[in-house]
């Protein structure tokens, strides 16, 4: 009797869960069509879950362990409970296996309870999530008692046994019904998102990294995303996979500086908005039980699946949208592989291309870009003003060269010119056959694209590609990771395929091949700040470090470094949209550098140079890597 009650309750819950999940799936299936290879995705799913997701989760090893125990035990217990519906199968083997699975799960559930009730990391959401440890414990412990009782032949008085069944069934209902609404969204939505992921190349079974933005079709009737329904269905599915673990919140540089952006809340804003089914139905964010966007209280935002997402009274405040530096720290940390930056860019595309609502200085810069091909509105001939005495060879005059030096827009800035002079000096010493494009070099289009101005980006990209295609050169070397990323990862969609090397990798080659000889250890301590567009976007974190070591500087690492480095605040057009917070992002980053006690911060990006140089007060000096190398060459 107890066994029948047990399995029929679980079967009923599973059926209810399936109905709910189907109903919930309607929300993201309402999105735009997307070309997804479902079969390949299904085949890759176990690998993606067990390798890619595990890698992210295992950055906190405790979490990986309790997930393995809890999920493993839970998933093993479900089929056993279903099998228990068949009287012929009820025997010591079934009850024994069930008890084993539940015991394993109980171990995991205790760990979850410890984390959520004792450790209490601040980034975790409350609300439904608060009940999770109780549900896990109820399910595992109560059913364990029932299984052991059945194994012993039913020694408990039946009212007590039934009470245990009911307690366990409550836990089971919390968990199974939570698959659709949370907290257990990763069980189904998470798995489906891995199957239909918009960037399958980012997983270990493909290239392992895929960071270039997708071109927008400028002929489309609507450009960018205005409402939740304008996103592709697999993007909506991605948002709906969020389990509010808050790892993005911890990593977000804007959140750290108290700018009004919390990536977790941003994704939940999208989820809350898509929760409404009917046209025009509104819902507020009052049910959200995590941290807010700093400075923006919860309960004021409202939206719906068919309503505009961005606006002062809408689900997402414009300040939230424009505070993002596109640094990808949230994407790097997300165990559900959600692509936050793609969502931000989709929303920005609508704001810029359809509404003309790019804020602050950004709109003026985009207009200058369109008319002068550089963000400062300067004559292009002045890009090489700083090098009048260096006689930079022009590719137009040479016709061909080994190395094309892409100067970038930093060349218009006095501080960056200093490091470019150092780089040119080093290339001369190493006897490199190089040239520059001079007047023919246009802005790479990076800033325009991150600000959502896909039209200007595509125009710049096409014209740069046409220029580059006219010449013969071995490869492109640049000191600007933004230009590097755009030319390497985003120009190929427009027919431009070139090898692009960052100057740190290039200088390392020159040092290792002996073309540059070093004086020997220069001494002094340095900490290296990884540019987002070199590290997270391109995975290059080794070359700059090996270069610093080769010079003989004593290298210390910041609290956040490498692929998990923290942004300087200069990406994504953030210095132009200039959303105010309590602090400035570069000030926060400089705090990390100060904490190392290093004498200098080594940077490898013109934007990082400017952002960190702008920090006032006592601080380590900011030195571009090529300047440090120039000091060290014999």
């Amino acid at each position, binding site marked *: 009797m107890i066994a029948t009650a047990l399995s029929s309750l679980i079967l009923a819950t599973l059926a209810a869960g399936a109905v709910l999940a189907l109903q919930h799936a309607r929300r993201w299936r309402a999105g735009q069509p997307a070309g997804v290879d479902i079969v390949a995705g299904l085949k890759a799913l176990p690998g993606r879950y067990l390798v890619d997701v595990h890698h992210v989760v295992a950055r906190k090893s405790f979490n990986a362990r309790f997930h393995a125990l809890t999920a493993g035990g839970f998933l093993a217990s479900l089929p056993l409970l279903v099998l228990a519906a068949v009287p012929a199968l009820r025997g010591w083997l079934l009850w024994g296996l069930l008890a084993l699975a539940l015991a394993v799960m109980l171990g995991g559930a205790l760990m979850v309870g410890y984390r959520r009730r004792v450790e209490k990391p601040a980034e975790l959401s409350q609300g439904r999530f608060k009940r999770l440890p109780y549900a896990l414990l109820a399910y595992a412990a109560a059913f364990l008692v029932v299984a052991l009782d059945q194994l012993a032949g039913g020694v408990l008085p039946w009212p007590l046994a039934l009470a245990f069944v009911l307690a366990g069934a409550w836990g089971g209902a919390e968990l199974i019904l939570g698959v659709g609404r949370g907290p257990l969204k990763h069980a189904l939505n998470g798995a489906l998102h891995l199957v239909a992921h918009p960037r399958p190349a980012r997983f270990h079974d493909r290239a392992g990294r895929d960071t270039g933005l997708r071109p927008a079709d*400028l002929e489309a009737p609507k450009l960018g995303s205005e409402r939740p329904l304008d996103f592709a269905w697999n993007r909506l599915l991605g948002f709906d996979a969020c389990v509010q673990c808050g790892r993005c919140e911890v990593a977000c540089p804007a959140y750290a500086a108290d700018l009004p952006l919390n990536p977790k809340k941003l994704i939940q804003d999208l989820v809350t908005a898509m929760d409404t089914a009917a046209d025009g139905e509104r819902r507020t964010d009052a049910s959200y039980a995590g941290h807010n966007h700093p400075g923006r209280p919860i309960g004021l935002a409202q939206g719906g699946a068919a309503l505009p997402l961005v606006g002062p009274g809408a689900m997402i405040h414009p300040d939230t949208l424009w505070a993002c530096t596109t640094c990808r720290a949230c994407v790097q940390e997300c165990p559900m592989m959600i692509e936050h930056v793609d969502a931000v860019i989709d929303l920005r595309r609508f704001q*810029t*291309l*359809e509404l*003309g609502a790019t804020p602050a200085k950004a709109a*003026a810069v985009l*207009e200058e870009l369109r*008319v*002068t091909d550089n963000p400062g*509105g300067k004559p292009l001939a002045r890009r090489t003003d700083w090098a009048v005495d260096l006689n930079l060879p022009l590719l137009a005059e040479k016709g061909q060269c080994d190395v094309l030096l892409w100067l970038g827009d930093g060349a218009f800035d006095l501080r960056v010119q200093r490091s470019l002079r150092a780089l040119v000096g080093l290339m001369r010493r190493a006897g490199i056959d190089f040239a520059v494009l001079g007047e023919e070099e246009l802005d790479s289009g990076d800033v325009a694209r991150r600000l959502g101005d896909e039209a200007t980006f595509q125009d710049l990209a096409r014209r740069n590609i046409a220029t580059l295609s006219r010449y013969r050169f071995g490869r492109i070397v640049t000191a600007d990771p933004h230009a590097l990323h755009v030319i390497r990862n985003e120009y190929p969609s427009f027919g431009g395929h070139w090898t692009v090397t960052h100057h740190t990798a290039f200088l390392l080659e020159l040092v290792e091949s002996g073309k540059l000889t070093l004086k020997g250890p220069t001494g002094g301590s340095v900490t290296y700040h990884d540019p987002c567009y070199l590290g997270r976007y391109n995975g290059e974190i080794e070359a700059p470090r090996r270069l610093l070591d080769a010079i003989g500087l004593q290298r210390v690492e910041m609290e956040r470094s490498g692929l998990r480095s923290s942004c300087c605040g200069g990406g994504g057009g953030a210095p132009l949209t200039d959303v105010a917070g309590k602090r400035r992002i570069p000030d926060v980053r400089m705090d990390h550098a100060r904490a190392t006690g290093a004498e200098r911060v080594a940077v490898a990006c013109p934007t990082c140079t400017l952002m960190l140089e702008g920090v006032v007060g006592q601080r380590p000096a900011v030195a571009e890597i090529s300047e440090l190398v120039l000091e060290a060459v014999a």
Partner: protein
Amino acid sequence: MLKVAVLLSIGRHPASGRPRRAPLDARALELALRLPGAEIHAVHAGDPAEPVLRDYLGMGLDRLTVLEIPAGSDPVPALVAHLKALSPDLILAGRCAEGGEDSGMLPYLVAQGLGAALLPDVADLSAGEGTATLTQALPRGRRRQAEARFPLVVSVHPAAPEPRQSAFARARRGLVEAVAASAPQDGFIGECEIRPWRPRPKRLRLAAGGSALERLKAATETKSGQGQVLVRPTADEAARAIYEYLVEQRVIGTS
């Protein structure tokens, strides 16, 4: 309903020389777009195929009328004829174009042709029944409030609010309506030589002594009416004048 005509020309970026929306005309359109409930008629005289015209559409116009006249011809008669037929309450234009004759005369000539009043250098305006309240920008940041009756031609000052961003999708969707118009050839502009502007060289002035403020003034202030004007000097004369000036300023020695 308030009927507003905005005269839009094509500007020229000072650094790249490429066509763009003229900054002051864009401000005029911005003022028009801010008038609640106004019926806006945007007019350009020139080539309807010019892609930059779409930048004005991107600011939120549904259509833009282009009076098709050949390059280098006088747009005033065509504009006056068109505006007479349209008979708007209010006509807005930037106070000076960018890249043509740049005389700033067009609003005056149009007002004369229409027999309408003109108020120059307007930085802000609001419209009432048959009249408009306008804010004029005067030198040194002063402002003057004015009231004027329709029909009224207004020239817009750089102190007017920044023009809104032009959105790509709206620019693409907007309609450019070409209307045939006749225009006399402009003899004057055809004879002009046009070359890029460059800043006038400043007289160098070496200042020593005095307070910091005096030195700063000496280094930054330009005084007119000093020195000697050479008209079409020979190369020798010019070189001698420069040499003597540098010696006088003690930039080079006399030995």
